[in-house]
């Protein structure tokens, strides 16, 4: 059904911390290995060993710079489907292949219905849809729907692959519809924000901004330089001659 649920019971999504993401790409390949054998199997790779290699990936990490000179910052920026509340990728779908689950808000593609018209990918401002050329259907991040409820996995493993693997703990998963959830608190605490709010898609996933940098001594309570110790006329090492025991 490509009409959107008016509201979803829970709003499952990711919170991505741009302050700690080191751009290691672990989430990228772990997502790939999980999902290539999962709900959307396979995540086809065209020309995998030659030029113009082109594969299906649900999660990609960009590197950006902004600012100049002293103020320049480098930011690694992971991006996967944001499971928008106002997901036009769903409403544009002519077949009903795209849908947003009313139970948890996950946006999915039913690959058996998809005709590969690509319209949903045009409708997604974020570039979160992935066309599998070989299969002729659209694929996308499933929020690891085949992990998060999977009774065949240990309870602690019922998290998205990208989240459990992130070495820098820059990815968090939870219910962003529940203001008391850990993720919602994190968002509140760190000023988590939406990407392209002006598009009106109301993404569920949130981004935590890079923290301000500590570039002065004062930022950590220190002075900006040290004063030479009083030498009391005993030369620079005068201060050393207190009696110490081993």
């Amino acid at each position, binding site marked *: 059904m490509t*009409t959107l649920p008016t509201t979803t019971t829970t709003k499952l999504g990711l919170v991505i911390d741009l302050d700690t993401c080191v751009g290691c790409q672990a989430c990228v390949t772990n997502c790939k290995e999980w999902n290539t054998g999962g709900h959307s199997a396979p995540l086809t790779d065209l020309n995998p060993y030659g030029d*113009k290699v082109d594969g299906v990936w649900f999660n990609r990490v*960009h590197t950006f710079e902004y600012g100049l000179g002293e103020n320049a910052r480098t930011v690694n920026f992971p991006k996967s489907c944001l499971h928008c509340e106002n997901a036009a990728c769903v409403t544009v779908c002519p*077949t009903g292949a795209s849908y947003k689950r009313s139970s948890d808000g996950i946006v999915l593609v039913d690959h058996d219905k998809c005709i590969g018209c690509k319209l949903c990918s045009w409708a997604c401002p974020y570039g979160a849809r992935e066309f599998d050329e070989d299969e002729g259907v659209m694929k996308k991040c499933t929020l690891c729907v085949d992990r998060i409820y999977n009774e065949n996995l240990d309870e602690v493993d019922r998290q998205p692959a990208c989240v459990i693997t992130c070495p820098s703990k820059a990815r968090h998963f939870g219910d962003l519809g529940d203001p008391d959830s850990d993720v919602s608190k994190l968002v509140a605490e760190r000023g988590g924000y939406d990407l392209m709010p002006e598009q009106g898609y109301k993404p569920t996933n949130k981004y935590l901004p890079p923290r301000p940098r500590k570039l002065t001594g004062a930022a950590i309570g220190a002075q900006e330089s040290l004063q030479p110790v009083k030498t009391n006329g005993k030369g620079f090492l005068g201060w050393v001659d207190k009696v110490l025991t081993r």
Partner: protein
Amino acid sequence: MHPAYSVIFFTTASGAGYGMLALMAILGTAGILPADRWFGFVGLALALGLITAGLLSSTFHLGRPERAWRAVSQWRSSWLAREGVLAILTYIPAGLFGIGWVFLEQTSGFWGVMGVLAAIGAFLTIVCTSMIYRSLKPIHQWHNDWTIAGYVALGFASGAVALSFVAHLFDVAGPVVKALPVALVPVAWAVKTGYWAFIDRTRSLSTSNTATGLRGGEVRSVDWPHTQENYLQKEMGFQVARKHALKLRTIAHGLTFAVPLAFAVLTLLVPNPLAGIAAFVALASIAAGLLAERWLFFAEAKHTVTLFYGAKAA
């Protein structure tokens, strides 16, 4: 946006087809066109042929054409589905109208009602097609009312030119038929000129700053997620050089509007067969011009996703 030839052909051909269908239906019902069997047959066949060829061509663009039938199910939310539904529905009155005209040489009464319905269907189908693009927020160059106006105006203008040609072919082109292109082509020209002015003047609200939420200077892409282009870049990251675009716009101005208009005026001034030749030149020109116009419609459209891949604006 990547200008896919199947989609360019689809939108231009079906646009002209629906335009022509609508005009024939209205003019036929109104009795302005003669209910001549062969003229009706050739004219409607051309209109429906363009529509059908366009629709078929659009399925080439599908990853799974054999499932195309599924595309009508979501008419409640999807403009593409609505377009599909209307396209199919329009075949019914259009077909009946055609039966009346071609077999019974009748275009009034019940057949006239069918004509009106076909015209409405054709008009709404063009609107739906345009709404597919108009509704896409991430593409600023499409997400505006010029898109609807453009599709409708160009559909009708090209339909009128095609109709004029067929009417000339059967020597049934009356003043209205001859005048229609002269009236509609300038409208379309104005709309398209307005569209280009609009997209030159405005930018998407989204920027690399809003895309990333990073503030404090322009956001520059240092490394893409993957060294080589991915689907998103190929599909949405199409870039056309400004110089190239301007050249194509000039071609479009000439072939889509100026030349067809001039030759349409000529049809008013010269007798057949010269008028017929003029009508043909107008048609050939607008057909070529539309391909350029439509190619640009895609090529000049910038998707917000490009903001993540180094585009300065969308």
